[in-house]
């Protein structure tokens, strides 16, 4: 028979779980789900985001920082101690993995902006955003890859299993998890380029290509964001921060701005809604994400999944009791939830918005 074809199966894979009751789940679930889709990546990037993992430090911003060398660490820590009260510094616990030969120096910091540094009424969140942008663009060889409270991202160059073992993912317990395996197509596979991409408590995993990257980047730069990580997905994290946190849009409206209905569909809407959608599209023309994508974004209160407007990338969702799952392939969900209550493929451009119940 003629079956000796060998093929690299391209695609990126993503997966996410949320407990609406904020039950904390250990990292083995997300790892097993992601590892099922190992062929969607090629070992040039994998990562995990977890929410609720630092309850002992929940009032502190948790900075996860990767350093190329000790000099960049010294420079970063000098800057940090100058502007922040530092509660704790530690190297991120890792486990030696044979195939991961080179890794950056990985350090985490639990910090709070010094009161005296919050001049001119700047909020703590804004101060942290400024710090992240400054470090990532100005301190050579230092990258803040996670900066939210009571959450953290763990990512690098490797496949999902290796990265999970390296960061000892199974030892963390979170109420929201996302995971990503990468098949880089347009940009380098480097530690900072692995997903999730983050800012404050936003974290994004993405399959596809954001072909509007240039427009989105220039738009974000006008608001002081600096795009330094060489990968299109970075814009999605900062756009959410701008639209939701800074401009006060609710999540659904922000999603409608990012994956806006086509003009022909806007024209068909009833009066009122048509005007609102027209205004939204015009206001946020430069925030529109074009090109093929499925993406998941986590934040401290929920998990959202969304596709591009003509569904050029896969996304499946499922529920089981208080848990909601979303992934590139149904099998990645079934691997960790054999009998879901419901399974469906969300329609193009229609976000699946899941929020944790208020305590």
């Amino acid at each position, binding site marked *: 028979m003629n079956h000796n074809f060998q093929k690299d199966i391209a695609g990126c894979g993503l997966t996410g779980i949320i407990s609406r009751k904020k039950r904390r789940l250990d990292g083995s679930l997300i790892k097993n789900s992601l590892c*099922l889709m190992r062929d969607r990546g090629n070992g040039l990037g994998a990562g995990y985001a977890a929410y609720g993992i630092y309850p002992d430090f929940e009032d502190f911003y948790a900075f996860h920082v990767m350093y190329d060398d000790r000099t960049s660490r010294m420079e970063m820590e000098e800057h940090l101690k100058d502007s922040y009260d530092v509660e704790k510094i530690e190297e991120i616990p890792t486990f030696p993995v044979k195939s991961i030969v080179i890794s950056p120096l990985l350090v985490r910091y639990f910090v709070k902006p010094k009161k005296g540094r919050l001049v001119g009424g700047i909020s703590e969140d804004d101060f942290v955003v400024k710090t992240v942008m400054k470090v990532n663009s100005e301190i050579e060889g230092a990258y803040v890859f996670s900066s939210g409270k009571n959450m953290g991202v763990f990512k690098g160059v490797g496949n999902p299993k290796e990265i999970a073992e390296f960061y000892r993912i199974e030892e963390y317990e979170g109420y929201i998890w996302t995971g990503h395996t990468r098949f880089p197509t347009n940009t380098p596979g480097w530690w900072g380029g692995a997903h999730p991409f983050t800012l404050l408590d936003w974290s994004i995993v993405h399959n596809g290509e954001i072909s509007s990257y240039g427009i989105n980047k220039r738009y974000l730069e006008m608001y002081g964001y600096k795009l330094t990580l060489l990968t299109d997905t970075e814009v999605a994290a900062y756009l959410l921060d701008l639209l939701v946190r800074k401009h006060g849009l609710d999540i659904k409206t922000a999603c409608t701005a990012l994956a806006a209905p086509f003009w022909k569909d806007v024209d068909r809407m009833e009066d009122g809604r048509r005007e609102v959608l027209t205004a939204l599209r015009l206001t946020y023309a430069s925030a529109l994400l074009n090109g093929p994508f499925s993406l998941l974004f986590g934040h401290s209160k929920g998990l959202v999944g969304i596709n591009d407007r003509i569904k050029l990338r896969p996304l499946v969702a499922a529920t089981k009791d208080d848990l909601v799952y979303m992934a590139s392939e149904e099998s990645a969900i079934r691997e960790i939830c054999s009998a879901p209550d419901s*399974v469906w493929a969300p329609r193009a451009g229609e976000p699946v918005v899941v929020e944790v119940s208020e305590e």
Partner: protein
Amino acid sequence: MYEIDAKGMYYRKLNELVRKAVGDGEKEILLKNVNGQYYIGDGIREKVKIIIEGVPGNDLAAFMDGPTIIVKDNAQDNIGNTMNSGKVVVHGHAGDVLGYGMRGGKLHVLGDVGYRVGIHMKGLKKQIPVIISGGTAGDFLGEYMAGGILILLGLDEKSDRPLVGDYIGTGMHGGSIFIRGDVDKTRCGAEVGVMEPDDKDMKTIRECLKEFCEDFALDLEEIMKKPFKKLVPVSARPYGNLYAY
């Protein structure tokens, strides 16, 4: 019946075992605990029956030429790519891009199907590929369709999903789509005509659905009670002049 327990098995190993069983002359193969393994049934040219328990991975039944695959659960994307003959029966729902360039054989899905179903289905000589979904479909149903038959039933009256999405038959230049329910002309490609099926069409629909109903133990007469719309290309070569200027 020959059984393979696929639990935790890598797709290459599983497909090797399936091909070996087929090569050894097995006629009925049961795959248990399948979850996400790609390429099941691809390129197999024997008239075997493969029963799958669990969710098979992408690219099921690609280039398949003869087998019958029964999926007892849901299935994923890209089923029946360039399939030549045989049949795939899915008892749950299925994903996007089903029957890409399909040129023969049958794909029966009881539940919903995703986007770009029947994209560039074509048929070959006297072969007429058939895709039937008992549920709803996403956008781009029958995109670039060149031949074959696509039938969409919308059997679940309680479903909150629209029967069919946007851009139906965009670029269609052959074959027929039959939809059980109303079709909004503005959701169809410019080259698509929406019309009432004639007696010959109804006979074709009945023939196709007879086997579909047998596969899923459904009542054919009940299904036939509701009227269908027929969608066909109204221009043979809509882009014939595209490069002529």
